[in-house]
């Protein structure tokens, strides 16, 4: 009883919604109307086989990546592996850590092969691949907690920046996290790199041996999880300020290393109302705090 992939325009008539199994994409292209049509059609054509491609080598994609691991064959799977490879000897990571970003990136590539556009994004549940033609920019809203979607800031990404991927990870999200961050958002050259890095940094926002954090073996919740018996975060009691600072310090150290290695451009780490921005000085993408000026009632 395989459900067919869903391909439809959203009610606004502007954005395309693609859905298949656990993959859920929102796509928007800007430019010439004919180019937009061509872009959407190309994305839908590429989309319909992606899940089957991934599932054909799922056991390999769920296994810990190592330098000497067998390499996957599929195009999306290869992107996933390449994205996690820089981390594979320093921590436990599987190619699945980059699946969302890699899918977004692959669909964006098919779009750009079919049409010349001003701008386009492929948003795969918060992991986003971007295209920007010269002199165009995106303004991206960021949220502290996915279950409380109030904007806490904006990112402005222009064509001149080399940022083309945004990803967010945290224990409140759909995927498991080993850390306690509500959300870690990463800007990187591409979506798969951002996805893998967000996972690694969110895992590092952590405090060992802290009471009040519920951790459960991943397999107890999801028997075929790629994380196996590793303890994943399922609940975090309110922390005191010094604990929050210490956990964010730990995540920020990892983020700084990844910035220095040019694996990412910048990162925003959110934990219980506190936010830490890690960004090298030269990066042009800036995270500014929300300065919405509103009328006082």
């Amino acid at each position, binding site marked *: *009883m*395989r*459900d067919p992939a*869903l*391909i*439809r*325009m*959203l*009610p*606004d*008539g*502007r954005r*395309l919604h693609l859905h*298949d*199994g*656990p993959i*859920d994409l929102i796509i928007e292209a800007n430019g010439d*109307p*004919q180019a*937009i*049509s*061509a872009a*959407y*059609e190309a994305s*839908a*054509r590429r989309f319909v086989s992606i*899940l*089957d491609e991934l*599932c054909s080598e*799922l*056991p390999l994609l769920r296994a810990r990546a190592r330098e000497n691991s067998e390499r996957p064959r599929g195009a999306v799977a290869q992107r996933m592996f390449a994205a996690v490879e820089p981390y594979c000897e320093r921590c436990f990571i599987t190619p699945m850590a980059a699946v969302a970003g890699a899918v977004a990136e692959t669909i964006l590539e098919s779009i750009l092969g079919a049409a010349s556009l001003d701008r386009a994004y492929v948003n795969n549940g918060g992991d986003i691949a971007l295209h920007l033609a010269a002199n165009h920019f995106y303004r991206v809203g960021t949220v502290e907690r996915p*279950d*409380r*979607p*109030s*904007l806490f800031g904006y990112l402005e990404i222009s064509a001149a920046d080399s940022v083309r991927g945004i990803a967010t990870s945290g224990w409140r999200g*759909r995927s498991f996290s080993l850390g306690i961050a509500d959300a870690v958002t990463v800007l990187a050259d591409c979506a798969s790199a951002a996805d893998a890095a967000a996972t690694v940094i969110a895992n590092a926002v952590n405090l060992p041996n802290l009471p009040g954090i519920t951790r459960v073996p991943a*397999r*107890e*919740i*999801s*028997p*075929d999880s790629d994380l196996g018996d590793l303890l994943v975060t399922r609940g975090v009691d*309110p922390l005191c300020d010094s604990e929050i600072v210490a956990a964010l310090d730990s995540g920020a150290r990892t983020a700084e290393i990844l910035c220095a290695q040019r694996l990412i451009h910048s990162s925003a780490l959110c934990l219980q*109302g506190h936010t830490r921005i890690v960004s090298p000085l030269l990066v042009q993408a800036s995270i500014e705090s*929300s300065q*919405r*000026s*509103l*009328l*006082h*009632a």
Partner: protein
Amino acid sequence: MPDVFPPDTVRCDACPVLCYIKRGHAGACDRYANLEGQLVRVDPHILLDRAKSQGTPLVPFLEREGDWDGKIMKGQETFVTAIGAGTTYPDYKPAPFIVSSEVEGVDMVTVVTEGIFSYCGVKLKIDTDRHLGPERNLVRAQGEPVGHVTTAEYGSQMLSLGGVHHLTGGSKSEGRVTCETLLDLCNGQEVELAIDDGASVRVAAGKPPVVNGQQEERMRVGCGSATIGMFAKQWFGKVDDVVVVDDHITGVLSEHQAGKLLGVRETGIAIQGRRSTPGRYFQVAEPGTGWGGTNISDPLTILKPFKAKFAWPYLRLLMVSTTGEQFAYYELDEALRPVEKELPEALKESVGRIRENCEPALTTVLFMGGAGGSLRAGVTENPVKLTDSVKRKLTRVTCGGAPAYIWPGGGITFMVDVTRMPENAFGYVPTPALVAPIEFTLKKDDYAVLGGHVDYVRPLVDVLKEKERQRQLTSHAQNPWPLKPHAGSSES
């Protein structure tokens, strides 16, 4: 692949991922779940109904052969809400959108703005008779005071949360937690609250409340005395006496006016507590989360020994709570002591009837705020005229298209049912204060008279052209159409 699974694990075959899903969990997609060992789809209706109600075809895009183009919307059928409108600053500049449209031949103007409400809060109506805590006691979220218990209503406990004193008058942390709590409640999220010397509750707008970990199912049918009145006839002849246990007024059939009228014989029953009028008792126990909102789990604790002068062996006694959720049946032994027996068939119906007459218990969340300050300056050059126009019902006030009840008296103080507003309509600023949408709709002529910013009025079609940041939603089925001329603002 894992080799050993707990029993009841199912393998989902809805997509090639073929997830193994444990009982009570969902698969990787969050759309299929294992409910009691069965694979069930948990979301299908949401997606389809939304699409259907908004008229979006569910046909695959490719069948439409590239004829995509931004659909043109019919002007009169679109109402611009203030959600996400933002505004200009400082206050004396016109609101971000002042939109005109023609409705039934009348030129209407809607002033659309998002306001920062430092004076705001929510009123929570929690349908339960369980004692949540003494009136006036503090209500806490994450340990911080965010409100208090206020006057109870029939069948419901009331909490008043937020307000300027918790938002900005206390510690930084108190303000932040209050703001979060209000925001979550207004956006339909579940919130956990603890009442000093009382219960802890989990509440979300439009959902049943959970009191001390126990989900409320039903409201009580009435107080204990009212329940006697309603069911006396159905009990007469089938049982000798009935006690309806209630924290407010416990009722006793044989002493109650309703029993007397039917000719129910005196039984010698004696109840703890303070007798109000015949068959009606206050304070039979302490308030709590047991039978009928009292703290008792064994109903016999509210009975004193039967009076030997009137009672007789084998006397049949039913004790039941005001929701019918708890009941027990007794017969007196030779020593006139009650002995629990199985509930006779003939009484099951009446207990079931009590339960049936209890409405589903819900939590309702009303957002309350005051638009009395400078927000009005974004609407008109002479703010008091807006207040006056609202009071005279020439101007209708809506929040995200939902009707607002306007309090009589000075200022524009309003209440709105958050479940009638679009999803996630509320935001916040770190001040801390809530950001809520508010729209003022009135006839264009009236707008000019009250000193409105007529030079800034833009036709609806122009506003709709800026599709970049717009989202179209279907209006809530129960909301009156905000643009309909000549309807009062406080109707709902």
